[in-house]
């Protein structure tokens, strides 16, 4: 086989968190730092990428799959030369264009026409190339009449269409794309995907990140799975997607067979289910600060009058982080008998991006006892949602504990 186009060897990237090295410093920090050399401890470090190696040949399209914070974006940023790796090396053969966002460098005051030239140049196109493709770009974006209007007056749809149109006419040997299809309407997304497919099948090498697994399967002939910064597997997209779906965990857990439980057994919790708040879809993970619904399925062996339900979120050591109870929330059931479910909608969760477990119970109020109680069941993965890398870094460190509460500060220097 021919020489690979992309060779990645033992690539790692470490971020040092905390006030001293992360974010900007002030001169005072630097000056005092000279005298107080405290080495960064392990818990202030975050390995966004750890010892990743793979090779890619000409014409291959690689899908990069993994959960938020698994290192996908960091890998793309290193290969795009936006940030330096901490260790390791990579070689890329040919012109590299990266598209980590559509419309990078668009200036709101400039017109659509002017922004095409500006954005094209920033993405690495020559003026000659842009001129040659100009009509096609405008046609693809369908914004002919607004070509001389400042883009600040564009609707968000027009803006995205124009931005993607410029990017779609990049013709590098290696194209790096991050989640750009998540914008625009369905029809436009379909056209973008078609365009990407053309690029991928015209002998160029593509690296593609998307949460849309279907598009990865459509577009790519190779895939890697990243988890906590490590490369878990390299292979065919269908295999990798299957493994990812397995790992991502279920959204429903059968607890009927668990023997380690307490209570009289007058009712039994059969399984737990994680749902979106509207109960229309199941979730395998939830987003940071976003409400979710947990459904406790049960079977009462005999009628229980005025039962109470409880749900607790536990950390990985089994300590209770949150407790939600039905009766105190004003939800009283007259009685239960047979099969049923109780839904707990966690309205304002303050759980940090971590993995948690559940504890659930049914109380027989009249009997003043637990009818049933199970703990350390299921799995609640809190993902990062729309939080930026910077903030995420600060949230993922261990010393933050398990919950996040917005705070307001007032500082008064004593002078």
């Amino acid at each position, binding site marked *: 086989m021919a020489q690979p186009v992309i060779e990645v060897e033992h690539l790692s990237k470490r971020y040092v968190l905390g006030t001293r090295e992360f974010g900007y410093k*002030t001169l005072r920090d630097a000056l005092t730092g000279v005298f107080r050399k405290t080495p960064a401890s392990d818990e202030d470090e975050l390995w966004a990428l750890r010892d990743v190696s793979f090779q890619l040949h000409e014409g291959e399209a690689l899908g990069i799959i993994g959960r938020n914070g698994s290192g996908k974006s960091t890998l793309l940023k290193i290969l795009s030369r*936006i940030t330096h*790796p901490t260790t390791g*090396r990579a*070689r890329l053969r040919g012109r590299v264009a990266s598209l980590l966002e559509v419309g990078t460098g668009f*200036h709101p*005051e*400039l017109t659509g026409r*002017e922004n095409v030239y500006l954005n094209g140049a920033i993405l690495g196109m020559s003026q000659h190339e842009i001129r040659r493709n100009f009509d096609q770009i405008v046609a693809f974006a369908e914004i002919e009449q607004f070509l001389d209007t400042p883009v600040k007056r564009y609707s968000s749809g027009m803006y995205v269409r124009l931005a993607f149109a410029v990017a779609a006419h990049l013709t*590098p040997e290696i194209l790096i794309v991050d989640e750009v299809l998540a914008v625009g309407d369905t029809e436009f997304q379909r056209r973008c995907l078609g365009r990407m497919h053309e690029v991928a099948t015209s002998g160029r090498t593509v690296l593609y990140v998307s949460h849309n697994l279907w598009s990865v399967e459509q577009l790519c002939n190779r895939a890697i799975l990243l988890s906590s910064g490590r490369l878990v597997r390299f292979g065919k997209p269908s295999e990798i997607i299957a493994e990812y779906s397995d790992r991502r965990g279920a959204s429903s857990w059968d607890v009927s067979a668990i023997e380690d439980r307490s209570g009289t057994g007058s009712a039994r919790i059969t399984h737990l289910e994680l749902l979106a708040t509207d109960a229309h879809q199941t979730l395998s993970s939830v987003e940071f600060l976003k409400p979710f619904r947990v459904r406790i399925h049960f079977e009462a062996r005999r009628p229980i009058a005025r039962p109470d339900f409880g749900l607790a979120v536990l950390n990985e050591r089994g300590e209770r982080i949150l407790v939600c109870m039905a009766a105190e929330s004003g939800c009283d059931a007259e009685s239960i008998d047979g099969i049923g479910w109780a839904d707990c909608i966690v309205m304002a969760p303050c759980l940090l991006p971590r993995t948690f477990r559940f504890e659930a119970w049914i109380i027989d109020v009249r009997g003043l006892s637990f009818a049933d109680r199970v703990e350390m069941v299921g799995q609640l993965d809190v993902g990062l949602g729309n939080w930026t890398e910077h903030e995420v870094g600060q949230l993922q460190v261990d010393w933050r504990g398990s919950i996040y509460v917005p705070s307001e500060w007032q500082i008064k220097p004593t002078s």
Partner: protein
Amino acid sequence: MPDSVAVTMRWTEIDAEAPAGRVDLAELWRYRELVQILVWRDLKVRYRQTLLGVTWVLIQPLLTTLIFTFLFNRVAHIQAGGGIPYVLFVLAGITLWNLFSSGVQSAGNSLISSAHVISKVYFPRLIIPAAALLSGLADVVVTACLLIVLMFWYGVAPPLAVVLAPVLVAICYFLALGGGLWLAALNVEYRDVRVLIPFLLQFGMYVTPVVYPLTALPDRFRRVAYLNPMTGVVEAFRGALFGTGVPWGALIWSMAVTVLLMISGIAYFRKKEGIFADML
């Protein structure tokens, strides 16, 4: 595949151990169009949606000249010396000083104002401060035209040495770029710099003979004043325009400082380049 069949494929090497600091001139040359377009953007955006548009480029130095002439010449009785009208004297000083100060200011803050692009696209980062400074050069051209018109008005004919003027503008540009590179890179890590720049520049204007001639200073101060690299450039610029003599010694000192600042500035900038995206 129109563009992909290149005879010699370029390799991009990414290596954690690679020494930083070397400047890839060939790469900078490939990105020359981006420099052009960034300068063009700066110029276009600056006066868009302003009522007076490009006339601002004229109004600013004109008003400054009038105010300075009133304050320092009429009120404080500072004379230009050499029979040169004070208006011309101060406008010549402002022309170069504005290039320097707006250049240092825009270059120094350039990385922070381009933070978003830096975190999303790669291109040689040196382009950003260099382009930020180039748009200031356009202002110099306009101010220079104003200066030429006023010289005609006052009947001041430039000597042969006037051919030196563009060279002096270039020295001033690189002096500002050298300083701007240092400040831009430092600014990413230490935001104190953002606060420090205006203060430094204000101080700088008073220690540079912009509103007063160097001859107005006592001897021992004059020698200290020459340590300021802008002193030689501004004095030589006036000498070239009005035939009052070029202070060669001071000019050579200015050029030496310029070269030193450029080399060290580029080295420091390149060394810190890898952390820009992580720090911004």
